[in-house]
């Protein structure tokens, strides 16, 4: 066994251990530990990605002295390693980009606790990415939920408490459904390990045994994860949570936490149930419909919103709708498009949150649109970055959003029943996106030289500007290198098999 294969285990344990150690450290040291951890895990995941691309074979890793159905096990393929690398990258940039706000908005004596939460959030994301066992996934889903709740309410104002509470309620409903359907699945198949469940499920479907409970259970499992990842009718907690938490938290919540659940759902589709079975079931039709509804209603709410952060948050609802629509198509191409959209949305949404904070900073901290007039002149870098994010969200060529929209359109064309609604809603949603994002861009570029607001130049905030630059480069890179990424997603999905 090659030493590189220890990487998944090292990254999970290292992030947990840093969380534990950080509880004894002062805030500054905890921040260093956190930064080093993210960089180290990112580097290790990169090495693992290269290794896996060369060997082309996924591997399993025993957690303990016992083989798979008895002991715990983690598993890594190309997609998992790439996902871990990407999560680290986004987390690193979000943490750096929001560092100054963090110092202002979080009380001094609670800052080291913030870094503990981030460390454990990273560990839970990595575990969700790598795990090969459904019950392990449940435990880490809970860590993810609690960490996210902590990230929301670390900025202690009334709004965040309410948002955290609403978030907890929705998440717990989701976890409850997830847990009971997990137990039912265990009862039907007798296993908790993903590969073994898949074998049993295939056997049960072939023998036509337990069809009713099996399908209902799978449906409940998907419903639980959909609730947790804020699919359209369950998004009521989202605007407050993203809108009022400190900016690093908002960026990480929108781009990492919900994506962790969605990635788990993809794993469940491929590794627990089997993609053919899920593609033939009616469950994906339900996901498809809610995805479409989310795409429209999310954008509608965003149009009515008067607060820039909340507008970006509502746009997340629409984007999660896109992802579920891709699942709902039930084809390999749809899945590829959804996975690509996970990347492009994560890169763009965190860019938007970080840039929006730059704009509100030069408008006396106000977030209403009228106050933001001309803010792009006062903070040029943030203005450019925000524009790039908006263009990407709307789907202008060269940026990542364009590629994912293209992939969605390609995937839906030729689909027997779902082509018309998918393409229509895609077009409609693009128009709605354009309306509210372009309005914002125009608003921040309307000349309004206010003397009472401070001006921020690149020189004043070098790190912040560099972060935004990295985000933009990432965004354009995703847009330009779409073909290799697409191929890589294909090979990753093949490794799930």
């Amino acid at each position, binding site marked *: 066994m090659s030493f590189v294969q220890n990487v998944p285990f090292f990254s999970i344990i290292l992030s947990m251990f840093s969380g534990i150690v950080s509880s004894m450290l002062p805030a500054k040291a905890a921040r260093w530990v956190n930064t080093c951890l993210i960089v180290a895990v990112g580097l290790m995941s990169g090495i693992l990605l290269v290794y896996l691309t060369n060997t082309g074979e996924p591997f399993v890793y025993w957690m303990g002295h016992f083989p798979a159905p008895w002991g715990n096990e983690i598993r890594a393929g190309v997609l998992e390693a790439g996902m871990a690398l990407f999560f680290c990258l986004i987390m690193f940039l979000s943490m750096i980009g929001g560092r100054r706000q963090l110092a202002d908005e979080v009380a001094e004596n609670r800052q080291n606790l913030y870094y503990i939460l981030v460390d454990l959030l990273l560990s839970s994301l990595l575990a969700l990415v790598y795990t090969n066992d459904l019950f392990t996934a449940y*435990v880490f889903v809970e860590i993810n939920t*609690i960490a996210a709740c902590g990230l929301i309410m670390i900025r202690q104002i*009334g709004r965040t408490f*309410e948002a955290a*509470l609403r978030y907890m*309620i929705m998440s717990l409903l989701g976890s*409850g*459904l997830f847990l*009971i359907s997990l137990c039912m699945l265990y009862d039907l198949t007798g296993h*908790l390990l993903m590969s073994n469940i898949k074998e049993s499920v295939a056997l049960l479907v072939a023998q036509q045994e337990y069809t009713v409970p099996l399908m209902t259970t799978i449906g409940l499992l998907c419903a639980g994860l959909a609730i947790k990842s804020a699919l359209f009718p369950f998004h009521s907690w989202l605007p407050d949570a993203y809108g009022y938490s400190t900016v690093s938290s908002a960026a990480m919540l929108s781009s990492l936490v919900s994506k962790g659940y969605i990635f788990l759902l993809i794993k469940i589709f491929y590794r627990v149930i089997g993609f053919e079975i899920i593609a033939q079931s009616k469950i994906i039709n339900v996901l498809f419909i809610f995805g479409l509804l989310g795409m429209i209603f999310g954008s509608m709410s965003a149009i009515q919103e008067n607060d820039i952060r909340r507008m970006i948050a509502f746009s997340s609802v629409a984007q999660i709708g896109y992802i579920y629509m891709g699942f709902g198509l039930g084809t390999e191409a749809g899945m590829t498009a959804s996975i690509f959209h996970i990347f492009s949305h994560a890169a763009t949404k965190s860019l938007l949150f970080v840039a929006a904070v730059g704009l509100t900073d030069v408008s006396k901290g106000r977030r209403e649109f009228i106050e933001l007039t001309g803010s792009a002149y006062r903070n040029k870098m943030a203005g450019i970055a925000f524009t790039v994010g908006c263009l990407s969200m709307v789907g202008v060529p060269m940026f990542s959003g364009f590629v994912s929209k293209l992939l969605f359109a390609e995937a839906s064309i030729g689909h027997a029943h779902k082509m018309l609604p998918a393409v229509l809603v895609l077009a409609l949603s693009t128009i709605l996106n354009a309306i509210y994002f372009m309005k914002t861009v125009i608003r921040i570029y309307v000349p309004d030289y206010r003397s009472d607001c401070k001006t921020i130049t690149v020189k004043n905030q070098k790190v912040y500007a560099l972060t935004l630059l990295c985000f933009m480069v990432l965004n354009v890179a995703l847009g330009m290198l779409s073909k290799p990424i697409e191929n890589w997603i294909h090979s990753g999905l093949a490794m799930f098999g």
Partner: protein
Amino acid sequence: MFGPNLFTNYGEAVSVILFVIGFSNLLMQKNLIKKIIGLNIMDTAVYLFLAEKGYIRDRVAPIVVDGVQEVEAYINPVPSGLVLTGIVVSVSVTAIMLSLTIRLYRRYHTLDLDEISMLLKKEGR
């Protein structure tokens, strides 16, 4: 529509009914404490379900007695382990919900989530 085992599986039936009761309480109650009680009912129902799943007729708890190690002697140990994990998760989550409730109550002097939202709107930003 119903399968053959509804009455033999009465334990599971009770547990899913309790699950739905807890689920609906968590979803629909306005009072935060009642919501938390709903959460606990829901979690406990899952433990009942798991305990029922582990049970096998005429067998005893999985603690080796007198060196007997036949499969026929003991019930399935896996669900017991899962229940243990579930309990710990539920305790943690309940503690967090309660402390959030305490903070909101101290600030707004009410346990009604709608009222809290209204007060927040009045407060402005």
